[in-house]
Structures are given as structure tokens and as C-alpha cells.
């Protein structure tokens, strides 16, 4: 009995040793050299495989970083500057600093602002709805509300608000990978520079119709009146095709444009409520239906004013 066990163990051990020797030489023969930095860079990356950098995944991005040898045009929006400086350290080069960005939905056409003119009972998909018709309201530029952006988001950062019928971005979770931007058939979502303390001011409208037509289909549409353009001291606002656009790079967040907008199409987010403007507020307050979200941890107002 013991001899059988002994022989078996011995035979198997010999086979094992022989195979190991063969495998060692085969592995040496077919060895593919890989830059060890690729692996290092990959561990530095967030590993979300979201495709926000424009590559198929984090591995592909790491390969691109190492092979290119420089980091111009290469940026991981999820990891941001910290992650990219880590990558730059491994590669021994300088990383380009980029402002963190966040997705914003440029439509404020809630149910009360945009009366419904028809309904769509097809599959819940913006891509299908957009190919069939212009939308369930008079505005053909506005949000269809089927939530393709929600499906596209890998970070659980965008959700439909059932009350408004519009998607809302969670600034904390949004990593600006751009998946929702690609998913939106109406190109409503923009990746916008994250201001100090997440403050943003932007035109929440994409309607390129003439003023009258736009106003008729939506109460909060940009009518291209160019009042904000005149008000802006920093040339940050341009009007193209009856639509105002605030350039986040030039904008100094002075908030002068928002009060002059006759349709309240300009939205301010994360700003403390204006104390000084209170004298004007009673006039504009009743017709100002936009809900401005005020952060819970709002700074003392004097800091802003």
C-alpha cells in the first residue's frame, strides 16, 4: 500500500518538475516584453472603464499614456488632476492641469413651463423618440424625458426628477466622463467647468427658434433678446441662432446676467441667495419659478457680497 502511494507521488512529482522546466523555457522563448509602467499607470487610474478619456478602458488609456510619452490631449476626467499628476510621476513628465468639469442639463422645460401638445407611448428611449417625432411639447430642442442619460451613466450621477420630468445631475458623483453627453439625442448636456464651491451659471435652454416661437412653446426658453450679452462685462456671453451661451472660461460668476433675463432662462446653481437684491425681489419673485438649489453648507453670505 505504501509503495503504491510512494510511486504515485514520485511519478507525479517528476512529471511536475519536468513540465515546470519545459514551461520555463517556453515562457522564456515566447516572452512578450511589456513596459512595466503600463501596469503602474493602470493601478493609478480609477479603474472605472467608463470610456470618458476616449479610450476603450483604463488599460487602453494607460497604454496610450506610456506609448505616447507625453500627456497632451490625454486626460482622465474621473481621476482628475490628482490622478494625472500620479500618472505623470510614474512617467517622469509634467501633467497638464485641467479644470474639473461637471455635466449640466441645458433645459428647464418642466411640465409647468412647457405645455404638452401630444404624447408618446412608444418604448422609453430618447433615441427612438427623437427619431420618431420632435417631442411631446411645442419645443423641438427640449428634453424628451425618457432618460437615456440615466441609463448611460455608470456613476449613478444623473437621475430623472419625476416632478419636473427632467434629469438632474448629482455634482458630487458626476465625473464628467461624457457618457450622457453622447447619449442625449438633443445634445442638451454640456460638460461645464466646475466653478469655485461648485457654483455655476448657465443658459438652461437650447431653443434656436425666433423669440416669439420659442416663448410660445416654453415659458423659460431663451428668446435671443441679447439683454444678457449687453449686461456682461467680460464678453462671456455670445448669441448664436437666437440662443445665448455663457462661456464658462470667461465668466466671472458675477451674476449680473441672470436678473436681466426676461424669461429666467439663465440658471444660477449653488450660489447663496442674494441679500442685497432683496429690494428687487418682490417684483420678480412671483414669476420666478426656477428653483435654485442652495447648498446646505452655504458660506456666510458676506463672503460673496
Amino acid at each position: 500500500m505504501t509503495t503504491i502511494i510512494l510511486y504515485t507521488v514520485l511519478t507525479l512529482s517528476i512529471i511536475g518538475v519536468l513540465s515546470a522546466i519545459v514551461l520555463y523555457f517556453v515562457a522564456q522563448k515566447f516572452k512578450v516584453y511589456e513596459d512595466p509602467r503600463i501596469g503602474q499607470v493602470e493601478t493609478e487610474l480609477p479603474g472605472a472603464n467608463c470610456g470618458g478619456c476616449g479610450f476603450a478602458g483604463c488599460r487602453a488609456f494607460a497604454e496610450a499614456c506610456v506609448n505616447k510619452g507625453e500627456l497632451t490631449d490625454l486626460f482622465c476626467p474621473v481621476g482628475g488632476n490628482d490622478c494625472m499628476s500620479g500618472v505623470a510621476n510614474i512617467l517622469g513628465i509634467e501633467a497638464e492641469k485641467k479644470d474639473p468639469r461637471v455635466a449640466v442639463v441645458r433645459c428647464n422645460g418642466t411640465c409647468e413651463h412647457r405645455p404638452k401638445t401630444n404624447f408618446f407611448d412608444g418604448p422609453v428611449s430618447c433615441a427612438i423618440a427623437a427619431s420618431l417625432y420632435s417631442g411631446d411639447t411645442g419645443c423641438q430642442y427640449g428634453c424628451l424625458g425618457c432618460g437615456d442619460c440615466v441609463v448611460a451613466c455608470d456613476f449613478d450621477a444623473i437621475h430623472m426628477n419625476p416632478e419636473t420630468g427632467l434629469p438632474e445631475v448629482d455634482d458630487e458623483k458626476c465625473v464628467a466622463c461624457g457618457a450622457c453627453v453622447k447619449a442625449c439625442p438633443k445634445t442638451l448636456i454640456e460638460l461645464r467647468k466646475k466653478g469655485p464651491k461648485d457654483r455655476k451659471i448657465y443658459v438652461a435652454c437650447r431653443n434656436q427658434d425666433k423669440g416669439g416661437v420659442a416663448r410660445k412653446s416654453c415659458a423659460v426658453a431663451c428668446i435671443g433678446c441679447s439683454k444678457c450679452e449687453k449686461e456682461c462685462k467680460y464678453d462671456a456671453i455670445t448669441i448664436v441662432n437666437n440662443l445665448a451661451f455663457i462661456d464658462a472660461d470667461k465668466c466671472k460668476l458675477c451674476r449680473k446676467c441672470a436678473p436681466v433675463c426676461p424669461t429666467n432662462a439663465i440658471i444660477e446653481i449653488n450660489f447663496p441667495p442674494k441679500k442685497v437684491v432683496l429690494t428687487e425681489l418682490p417684483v420678480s419673485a412671483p414669476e420666478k419659478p426656477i428653483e435654485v438649489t442652495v447648498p446646505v453648507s452655504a458660506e456666510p453670505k458676506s463672503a460673496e457680497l
Partner: protein
Amino acid sequence: MLKSFKIGGVHPAENKLSASKAIEVLALPKTVFIPVGQHIGAPAEVVVKKGDKLMVGQLIAKSSGFVSANIHSSVSGTVKKVETGPDTSGYPKMGVYIDVEDDLWDEQIDRSTELKSEINLDSAAILAKIQDAGIVGLGGATFPTHVKLMPPKGMKAEVLLINGVECEPYLTSDHRLMLEHGEELIIGIQLLMKALNVNKAAIGIENNKPDAISGLIKLAYRHTNISVVPLKVKYPQGGEKQLIKAVTGREVPSGALPISVGAVVTNIATTFAVYEAVQKNKPLFERVVTVTGKSVKNPSNYKVRIGTTISELIEAAGGLPENCGKIINGGPMMGKAFANTEIPVTKGTSGILMMPEKESKRSETMPCIRCSRCVSVCPMGLEPYLLMTLSEKQIWENAENEKVMDCIECGSCSYTCPANRPLLDYIRLGKGKVGALIRSRKQ
């Protein structure tokens, strides 16, 4: 046994409510909006400006390429503005607004009703007239007819097929044309045969129109090269490839054009438009539209000027029924719902169907039970359930390999699905995406 195509097909309730109603001429509208992109291909270029006086039949937009078509004024009056207006799905499209004044026709148009049967033009002249008149496929696809009649080099048309199938439920405009204008149609067919240089033509008509079949058989009796082929009632027999299979037995290969099997198919309404254009010098500016629906007071067939808003047609047929849930452009199988009623009739509008709310609503979607009914009814031999899943999961390469581009969007799969799955919606989405992929690859 009657001929038909072999694979798949369904037989929805026919509901040809307006089949016995003669074609009526609709009263002239006060204003019209004529879009310049009413066909497949490049939109035409506007050649009129605000304030111009127009005659009926005058050119207002010129074809901007080979695959494009001229657009003519359907009314006489003044150009109000050249601006965008709504198309069928509500998106803005460039077009010409005209205020109607009187009804002055271009002098070249022969307005008499007498039959003009002698054909004294050669093939090139007929083609030129068809092209000038802006004729497109009036069955709904609106492909410019002159392009169809000029086969690519190396290919030769052998047989002309006339599509009198009208397999969509409810629609009767082609049926009425066959009954009331049979003689003109026979001349139209001869013109098309001469233009194509073929000596064989067949008119395919489904067996649910016996009066049209017997009428056309009598008329075609003197012409040995024109035959009338009665077909079994089966949807989508009016599809180009299905009709070719049913009448000639030939199968158009995947991705190829009908001309690859030597067939050219034109619709009845198109053939009638060809007769009018060549023999009467009348450009395409009016067409027969069926206005119908189960609760519509007076389902009818109207001869309508292009650019008339559909609300006027609905008014003429007795107004919008109270229980109307959807107004559909075309038939119930392939038609799309209109976004609103201020949309103009275009060359591709074959019918306006008002569906009661109860019937028009989609039922709740349930999971696929793998019954493969969609596979058995697909007239192109595809696997709709698979294409839908691939499209839903956005696996476009696999969808391409599964021949999503061969789908003719007939909707038989969605019609037959017991789980009410929106098969066609997703397949159409996949077709769009895969088509874009293929185009980007070619560049």
C-alpha cells in the same frame, strides 16, 4: 392557387372603409406650406422669393442633385414667406408658404379630361419629362422615379412591375385610381415601359380588389405585353422585394436593388402621375389621399393639393372624432403618428388614419417568451427578437451581421408579438445606427 411571396407575412383586418367612395376634389385651401424636402435625397433649392406671383404648376424649388426632385406650386397666389415649417414628425423643414389667390394654371398644362393615348416621345424625352415634373414614388417611400428608371451601368431592366397591391389596411387611394383611371394607368404603364425599354409589364393586385382586377384585365386585354396578376391577400405584399418575389418568383439578394434581378417596381399613383406629367404636361402637385378611420363620419378619398394642412382634410371628412387617440400618416402598419394637425400633405402622404384611442394605445410590454412568432412572420427572413435585443444592448456590429439593414420596417413582428414588445422601434433605431456606421466606414 394565387401567387404570393413565400416567407412570413401577416393578414391584419382590412378595414377598407372608403373603398366604395369615388375620388372627390378637395376645396382649395387659403394658404399652403410646401416643404422642399418631400423626397428621399437632397432637398430641392428654393427658386422663388417673398412676394413672387405663382401659377399652379410653376416650379418653386429646383432639384439639387441626381437623387432629388423638383417641387412645383400646387396653387396660384403670392409667396408669403420662405421659411421653415413643421414636417410630419414636427421637426422644422425649409419650405414655401403661399397665399392662395384664384386658381390660375400654367398654360402648358392640359386641363381637359380627354384621354391622350398616342405616345410620340422617345425614351429620353419621357424620362426628362418625368424628372421635370418632380415625380417620386407615391407609395410612401418617395424615391425619385427618374433615378429608378435609369438603371446603373451594366444592369438591364427586364420587367416592369406595377404595384397595385395596397396591402396596408384602411388605405384605398390606389384602389380608387385603378377603378376610375384605368385607361390612363395603361398608358402610364406603356410610357414607363418605353422609358425603361422593356417589353413586359405586370400589374400586381391583391385579391381583395376584384373590381380593380377585372377592370384592368379588360383594359389590358388589347396589350399582350401587359398582364394583370391577382395576388393572395397578405401583408406586406406591397413591399418592393415581396412584390417581385410574388409576381416573378425572383428573390432580390440581401443588400441589392430590385434592378439586380431585372425588375423595376412603380406604384399605381406614381404611374398615374407619369401619365399626367408626360401626356398632359402636369407636374406632380396633387395626389389622392385616403382620409379614414372607424369613427370618422365620412371616410373618403380626396384629390388634394400638396401643402394643404391635414386639419382641412380631417374637417372635410367630418371632423376629428371625439375618441380619436392618434392621427396616423399612412396606414396602421407602417404609418407614423402626426405630431399635430398643422402639418402639410406632402408627396408621400397616402392616407390619414384617425385611430380610436382604445385601439391606438400600446399595450404594456412584457418579457419575450421565445415563441418565435416574429421570426415566422418576418417577410425578410430575419430574427426580429434578436435584432431588438442587440439594438437595445447597443451591439451594433452583431446587429449588422444579423442583417439588420435588410429590414423593410413593415412592422409585422411588432403586430404579431404576444408580449407587445416594441420590436420595430428598436430595429429601426439599430438600422439608423448601423447605417451611420457603414457610411462612416466608407469615408
